[in-house]
């Protein structure tokens, strides 16, 4: 009984220490982002790695998800004779939920895990220590550009996903299932407003981008310097980031609706 309490106390202290460590890490990134040197060149490189290389999967998934939505939406709406609202259904679902969440999960899997793995292997091969010896702060040089890139890229990928999904829904609904093209577009545009929907999606994707960027870099930075450590960092990133995204999705949705 006593030992159980002791373990609990120990675990709590460890958790708090962990959280404190994470908070310090996040604070460091924030400071470095605002301080010179701004490392624009490295930021560009990271945007390439995170954004440009994720384009293919995001756009392809977007079109596919849009197509599925078109199909499912149509099947349900015909029961009420409301196929004309297909555009609205597809559009709202994508903009409010599927766009930001799907994009974030896809990017986590592709770029988030790569980011964690890269940093973790730099720990293993002592490259980060090498930087320290050259009086260069690894957080400033390696971590901050990566985290910033993720933050910048996520909203863009989100919107590209959404647009490709609109298109996927259009192709299925209009070309395949006979919904009128004009009706699709009009109901979509009418249903989506900037203040209610688009602003929300941008907010979500910015928040998700921040979360994934911080989680991936933290996991990589604090990885054990072994190959098992690299692997743990990578899988840990995907798991932690995915769960956190879904939790924050709920929180933002609930607060936004208020």
């Amino acid at each position: 009984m006593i030992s159980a309490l002791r373990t609990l106390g120990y675990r709590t202290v460890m958790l708090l220490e962990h959280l404190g460590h994470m908070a310090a890490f996040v604070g460091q990134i924030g400071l470095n982002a605002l301080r010179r040197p701004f490392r624009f060149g490295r930021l560009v490189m990271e945007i390439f790695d995170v954004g440009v290389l994720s384009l293919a999967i995001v756009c392809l998934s977007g079109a596919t998800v849009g197509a599925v939505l078109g199909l499912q939406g149509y099947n349900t709406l015909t029961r009420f004779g409301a196929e004309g609202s297909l555009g609205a259904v597809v559009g709202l679902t994508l903009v409010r939920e599927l766009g930001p969440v799907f994009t974030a999960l896809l990017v986590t899997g592709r770029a988030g895990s790569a980011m964690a793995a890269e940093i973790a292997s730099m720990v293993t091969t002592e490259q980060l220590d090498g930087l320290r010896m050259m009086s260069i702060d690894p957080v400033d040089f390696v971590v901050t550009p990566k985290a910033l890139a993720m933050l910048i890229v996520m909203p863009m990928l989100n919107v590209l996903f959404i647009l490709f999904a609109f298109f996927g829904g259009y192709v299925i609904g209009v070309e395949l299932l006979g919904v009128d093209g004009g009706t699709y577009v009009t109901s979509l545009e009418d249903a989506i407003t900037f203040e209610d929907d688009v602003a929300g999606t941008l907010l979500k994707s910015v928040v998700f981008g921040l979360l994934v960027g911080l989680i991936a870099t933290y996991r990589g930075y604090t990885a054990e310097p072994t190959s098992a450590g690299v692997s743990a960092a990578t899988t840990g990133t995907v798991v932690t980031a995915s769960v956190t995204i879904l939790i924050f999705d709920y929180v933002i949705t609930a607060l936004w609706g208020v």
Partner: protein
Amino acid sequence: MRPRLRKSGKKPIVATMRAAPGKRRSVSEVDRIQLEGIHLAFGTRPVYRALDCRFPRGQISVLMGGSGAGKSTLLRLMAGLIRPDQGRIVIAGEDITTLSERDLFRVRERIGMLFQGGALLDAMTVFDNVALPLREHSKLSEADIRAEVERRLAAVGLPDTGGLMPRELSGGMLRRAALARAIVTDPEIVLCDEPFSGLDPLNVRRIEALLIELNRRLGLTLIVTSHHLPSSLRMASQLVFLIDGGAVVGTPQELLASEDTRVREFLEAETAGMPGFQAVPEVAS
């Protein structure tokens, strides 16, 4: 990356052997790095207990000892990458154990480090790697930086390799490129972690010659960790044996003549049974 702080409960074993009276230190020598009373443990495993050690300026010191004895760890302590549980580390008059990371960056401008795997950034070319400290910290123009980098690469025998990526270099070349990076800012002290490991004898000789020349020409204080007995005996003005959490210090001649059984065991392990070779003179028992 700091090791969990748990004090080892064992009684300290002080095991330093001062220089025997025969060899006098010259009066002008100043110790560049001093370690005093170092205690360090990784979890429950003690690494050092009350370690005392001095590294004279402008000399080549070699750290030796069995695997796990803590050679690389000592280097990392001196580089400020790890902090000891207890003790002081004084570099050029400053105790680095009390410094913040910011201040450590300042101290490290005088120290270069050659890591075992080179630790070059694998996403950049060799040239960019060697140029990095200059680009970050000096105000030199790109043309001047180019000149400095090429000079260093030539000095380590890699004159035309700037455009290659680190993964395209052989082990020996990688070490030399990393050495070029370590010296590009003209540090006073260079720490080398196992520069000879995994290299064929010719490359070992090459790097050894390089280090000796750097020491001679530039007056660098070199601290090298090594398993490699022949090079160590050739290069070092001071050998530091890390055994049982403490250090046994002396010149190569002194240690070869040492009566400390642990030292003898180590030396003999290297050379015993080799035909026609006797590194360690027999001591009449």
